[in-house]
């Protein structure tokens, strides 16, 4: 049941490059990453692509397939017509290093700018007691495999280099929400989300949610609630403190 597919793959390094045409064998059950690997093994040994787990767990193989951000290892060839030409390009928001590999250091830099988990000083390891319902919200966000496709797709930075310094992107705004909803985190997160990490830039278009391979409801469950918390806090600064104390005691 194998057939020959037509591929266009972006190739190049150092800021230059073009789409190259390939005709390549496809077998039953294969995914786009398998085809890229076949190209490496048979036609283009130096074709650069990132991958690790090949099971949608590590978030390494982010690329744009026919213009849509996808994990190469989770995109089955059977979702395309046999005579369709499949175009594979690197993520657009980040500088290309070579072929399908981009420089994602923006994301690591943003991760570092967000203050870490801050538990109360008097709770010792082993003493944490949390109800399943209270950890579930943050657990949803911790499913994130850091594929960075949400940051790649968000229009605030996709074609706006100038917004990058002021905007953490959906991935890391969600990280702030995750910490804010952690039952034991005591750091102030709302003002800083708005003022330092650019929550205000987000106009809830939900493009990030649509591409998330983990199906995390980034906009509905992290960004919008976070915006609401910011507003609440603006009206009543005691709400935040009260919430924390109440949650700790319950």
């Amino acid at each position, binding site marked *: 049941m194998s057939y020959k597919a037509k591929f266009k793959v972006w190739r190049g390094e150092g800021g230059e490059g073009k789409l190259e045409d390939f005709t390549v064998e496809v077998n039953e059950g294969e995914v786009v990453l398998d085809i890229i690997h076949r190209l490496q093994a048979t036609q283009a*040994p130096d074709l650069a692509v990132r991958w*690790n*787990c090949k099971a949608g767990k590590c978030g390494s193989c982010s690329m744009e397939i026919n213009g849509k951000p996808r994990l190469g290892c989770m995109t089955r060839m059977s979702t395309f017509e046999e005579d369709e030409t499949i175009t594979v390009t690197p993520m657009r928001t980040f500088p290309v290093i070579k072929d399908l590999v981009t420089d994602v250091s923006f994301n*690591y830099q943003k991760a570092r700018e967000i203050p*870490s*988990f801050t538990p109360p000083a008097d*709770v010792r390891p082993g003493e944490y007691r949390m109800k399943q319902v209270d*950890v579930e919200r943050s657990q949803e966000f911790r499913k994130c495999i850091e594929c960075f496709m949400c940051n790649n797709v968000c229009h605030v930075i996709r074609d706006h280099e100038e917004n990058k310094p002021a905007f953490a992107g959906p991935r890391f705004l969600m990280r702030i929400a995750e910490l804010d909803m*952690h039952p034991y985190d005591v750091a102030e997160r709302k003002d800083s989300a708005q003022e330092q990490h650019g929550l205000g830039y987000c106009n809830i278009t939900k493009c990030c949610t649509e591409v998330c391979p983990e199906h995390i409801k980034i906009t509905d469950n992290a960004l919008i609630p976070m915006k609401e918390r910011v507003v609440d806090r603006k009206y009543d600064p005691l709400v935040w403190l009260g919430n924390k104390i109440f949650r700790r005691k319950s």
Partner: protein
Amino acid sequence: MEIERHEYDVVVIGAGGAGLRAAIEARQQGKRTAIVCKSLFGKAHTVMAEGGAAAAMGNVNSDDNWMVHFRDTMRGGKFLNNWRMAELHAKEAADRVWELEAWGALFDRTKDGKISQRNFGGHEYPRLAHVGDRTGLELIRTLQQRVVALQQEDYETHGDYEAYIKVFQECTVTRLLKDASSVHGPAGAISGAFGYWRETGNFILFDAPAVVLATGGIGKSYVVTSNSWEYTGDGHALALLAGANLINMEFIQFHPTGMVWPPSVRGILVTESVRGDGGVLRNSEGKRFMFDYIPDVFKDKYATTEEEGDRWYTDQANNRRPPELLPRDEVARAINAEVKAGRGSPQGGVFLDVSTRLPAEEIKRRLPSMHHQFKELADVDITAEPMQVGPTCHYIMGGVEVDADTGAAAVPGLFAAGEVSGGMHGSNRLGGNSLSDLLVFGRRAGLGAAEYVNALPARPAVAQESVDAAKAEALAPLERSGENPYEVHHELQRTMNDLVGIIRKAEEVSEALEVVEKLKERVELVGAAGSRIYNPGWHLALDLRNMLLVSECVARAALLRQESRGGHTRDDFPGMNPEWRRKLLVCATPDGAAVTVEEKVQPPMRKDLFDLFDLGELKKYLTEEELGNAE
């Protein structure tokens, strides 16, 4: 061109659970620490671990404690384990898991708000701390975020995030460097590491008195494996080439349940939690065949009827566990035998069914990634139909021989932790014992390295000749226009899979050794087309040296060990032999090319640990002499 050069106190090679925990410890001890890894930060293999981390916290069953965990670990490893490591592991795992919670990890909870624990093969009580079936992701992300937290602290005090701990990602180490003289410290001590940036192909040199290897496993020497491209046995080979020893290399864990279809995902793991949470194995006749495969040593610990096995999930005090939860080596061999006997599934595995055992909603809640994985990759809805599964090369028990307490290898300044180290798991690892191993021994190796550096009179020096040699070695494939490295790799994978796989025979293993010799010659000739920039063909050409060395160790040790135990099954020597239990096979490469293997006697178990077992049970494993000595 000048080679980029960095000075550190401790260089940790590997950013999985073991490497990150080691680096955190070294930094907390005030050491300037580098973390070097082949992938992006946060993507190491640990991210794929699913089921959980074993630690006797006793949250679900309060009868659990370190002694029960220790006994389970020794039984799982068929008593070949380094008992001191098994002891430290069982005693310290709980603290290491609790510490993660204080760093922000969010494990699933029990009703009273503690960390929930799940059942797994070979563990007497529910013991695995977990987050659904993505525990490895939680573990690595938490450690990654802990590293960031330390960097933020350093930014506060020194104005530089990377003042004390820096990650060199997508950077591959190809050689460890040693001091040529004994002027600066112990003779032949570690003085650094040499590698290349994947992105540019430029070289990098670390000047450091201590190196911690945390490079993971070797699965990429096999065709059917749950392991990623990173698992080319680099750390194993680096240690050998630096003069350290590897032990237990014949013991490879074939996980019983890997996906078998479609072909392109063959080998990808199906977590043991499926069975821990109630999933059962059936053959083509619909029979739960595992009841036929309970070995004598485990006869009184496993249910003999389906009814008893099913009752166990809700009442563990009065029932024995179902045989689907036997240690992995037993289950893998059973599946292999069923398939060979013609009772396999259409695609060459057996059936693993959870759809008739749990409500659909419960399956989606407890096993979300498995549900997702089968739906996306195989078009199978596991809440409605069974999966087809078969054994896959998963984990290597063997690795660098280390001191249990400090992780120190035979070469001064070299430390190892995690999958790359050997001893802890004996001949077979229990599920969940790896994640806890990473934390316990990662911390110990980081501490060991820091203390070693504190005690050094002077920094060992990097010898220019060894840097030049490492550079020439790395450039060689680019300068040749020989065979494509993918072909050599593929032949090695087939050879190891077919000839040194789950069931081994002397003739086949000897044949594999002959192939390996020929492949070694071919590797000398492979060429990599293209530039030095992010060139996977070149990277593979360099990895082949490591895969071949490690494969040779596996095959040589497998040929010598004339018994079957844990992850080593000899068709021509089917039984376990107490004489062999006392012996370790130690691999080394004195000339840097050929592998030698020597026997070494294990030290006898300490009296108080010995006394934790029933003498009747020990009789199944130990020699008369050993039993007599302990009286």
